[in-house]
């Protein structure tokens, strides 16, 4: 699963000279990683490329909630539980997802297909409650719609 370091290195060379390019490099590494996360090797790589201490990169990575330091599923399900979603029943959606996937928020399904996360406001409060799977937003959700929605992703994975 962990790719050859020289390939990973090539993915971030373009950002090294850019002002403030480190976050972009981290984004790039994570989005191109198979398991949707930044490995210790990735973090060491960024530190050496940008000439900063490894601790500094760790500090930055763990500061931001969208970077993960443990492997995640192929699809990230982000459940918005902010106020506008909360008042129209987001906690039911989260509970239903936890029940359906048999994991808690923060966990990954045993088949490695889904990781369930709570997210900050997705900014689609007009269609609350909402979730985001990877970069696709689904709004006006009811818990009854969830199994069919996830089935689409499962089918796609099998195909």
């Amino acid at each position, binding site marked *: 699963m962990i790719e050859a370091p020289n390939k990973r290195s090539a993915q971030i060379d373009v950002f090294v000279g850019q002002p403030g390019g480190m976050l*972009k490099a981290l984004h790039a590494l994570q989005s191109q990683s198979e398991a949707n996360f930044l490995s210790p090797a990735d973090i060491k790589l960024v530190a050496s490329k940008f000439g900063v201490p490894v601790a500094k990169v760790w500090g*930055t990575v763990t500061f*931001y909630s*969208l970077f993960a330091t443990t492997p995640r599923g192929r699809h990230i399900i982000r459940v918005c539980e902010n*106020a506008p979603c909360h008042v129209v029943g987001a906690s039911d959606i989260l509970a239903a997802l936890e029940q359906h996937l048999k994991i808690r928020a923060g966990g990954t399904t045993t088949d490695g297909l889904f990781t369930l996360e709570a997210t900050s406001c997705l900014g689609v*409060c*007009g269609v*609350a409650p909402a979730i*985001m799977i990877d970069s696709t937003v689904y709004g006006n959700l009811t818990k009854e719609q969830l199994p069919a929605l996830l089935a689409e992703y499962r089918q796609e994975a099998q195909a």
Partner: protein
Amino acid sequence: MNFYRSHVLVCAGAGCVSSGCLNTMEALVDENAKLGLDREIKVIETGCIGTCDLGPVIVVYPEGVFYRNVTTDDAREIAREHLLKGRTIQRLLYRNPLTSQLVQTYGEMEFFNRQLRIALRNTGVINPEVIEEYIARDGYEALARVLTTMSPEEVVATVTASGLRGRGGAGFPTGKKWGFTFRAMSDQKYVVCNADEGDPGAFMDRSILEGDPHAIIEAMTIAGFAVGANQGYVYVRAEYPLAVKRLQLALDQARNYGFLGKNIFSTNFSFDILIRVGAGAFVCGEETALLASIEGKRGEPRPRPPYPAVKGLWGKPTLINNVETFANICPIILYGADWYGRIGTETSKGTKVFAVAGNINNTGLVEVPMGMTLRQVVYDVCGGIPNGKEFKAAQTGGPSGGCLTKAELDVAMDYETLIAAGSMMGSGGLIVMDEDACMVDMARFFLDFTQDESCGKCTPCRIGTKRMLEILDRMTKGEGREGDMEALYGLAENIRETSLCGLGQSAPNPVLSMIKHFRSEYEAHIREKRCPAGVCQALMSYNILANKCRGCGLCARVCPTAAIFGKPKEVYRIERKKCVKCNACLEKCPFGAVVRA
């Protein structure tokens, strides 16, 4: 150039995309082609029209017929019936929730005709991916006028005279900020657009970037000329992929037209803009934290002064404004500061975009003159509270603000009046709550948010909010104690006065405001261990009504903890100690015999 007898706008804001508008549009285009209408009718994908809960939304011009919740089959029917035969499909029209009347056209909808759209002038009207549509709506004319006929001083003076104030939350006069940055001496300056819209419930910045990205590019370029900067950055949240995509496309188009880059409009002025995508940290909406994040570091705030206008990005003078603030700039240049100054109230000029969400009939984006009352926004523009329920409170200013109650429905929505009423404008999120909302739960909720988003740099915010949250947590679990409210007040005061940045300083606001307005609810939680709104699960108990129970046993079968017992055809009972309050029995009972109190 082609002429079309009808233009059909399909809203493709993120809200409508999530409701499936892209499939709807595809069906419409496909059916039009089948009917041979594709040369007469133009289908245009626009930014957010504003009525998010009615999506997918379609407006047919020139008549202005507004269709809501349009499925793919509906879209085909619109093509066959309306576009081909000219018959309006009554079934798909919007029904006014207060009068139950069908509304025939866009202009007759109160939701739209009570609005005054300046920042949202093009959002939902033009295709944001086609620069020509923006140009056709006077786009880049303000920039041309600034670069060819005005001096930087004149631009700053115009913005100052307009009375425009920052729309991101604090309401600082925009012209002053521009003046500070203009006067700062440096070889290098920057212009930054804050699109790190993190306030739960606010989504106007997303909609503007998605629906009218050129308005921001043009305004930032004008700002660059005014303050003497040649480089701009837009810092966008990673949660807004569609906004990033459309902004990137718009930047490329603007460069191709020579509106960005070297020697714009053949003048000596050069300016370019780069996008920086955040990585999920609410505190990055704070300007000094945002700048640290653009520099590629942890997004932690630092004490001010020095303000960014003096020492900002990479230590250089930096002008930083919010998306909605920038969206007001071009109309101010085109129509003048006097025109702008006539809109709004004495100290709050212009309009404000509110993102209305929660328990309300028409959720979505509305732009109204400053000073409109809360009642007008909630009832006249947004159609009131659904399901015949009562308005209980509205939270403004998100997790930094406070709530307004029924007694404050006639409060004018402007910067000063909202603060006097114990709340604040914030970025314009307006979360409406009906009678079913528990105000202890809501306060706990907002504090949970700020506590979670605290960056941890300063102690009062990191630890103080945690202690407050623990107290509220206990209250919602029925473990509240006498003295809890006083402890909350004490902590709140310390956190307010000693936190480093706005996040901490304002974190106690929702709690204080909710205690102030709904003290009796807090007392009920603490003294009677009772949640009057019936929200706090731990304080609820379930019962089976003997007169309604038919003894079917369904409840006992769904109970995960075997807390329900009884014999068939007799009244079943719930054993309190075993009950985990999962609500399964209540949902299952076909006779409504299970009740929660």
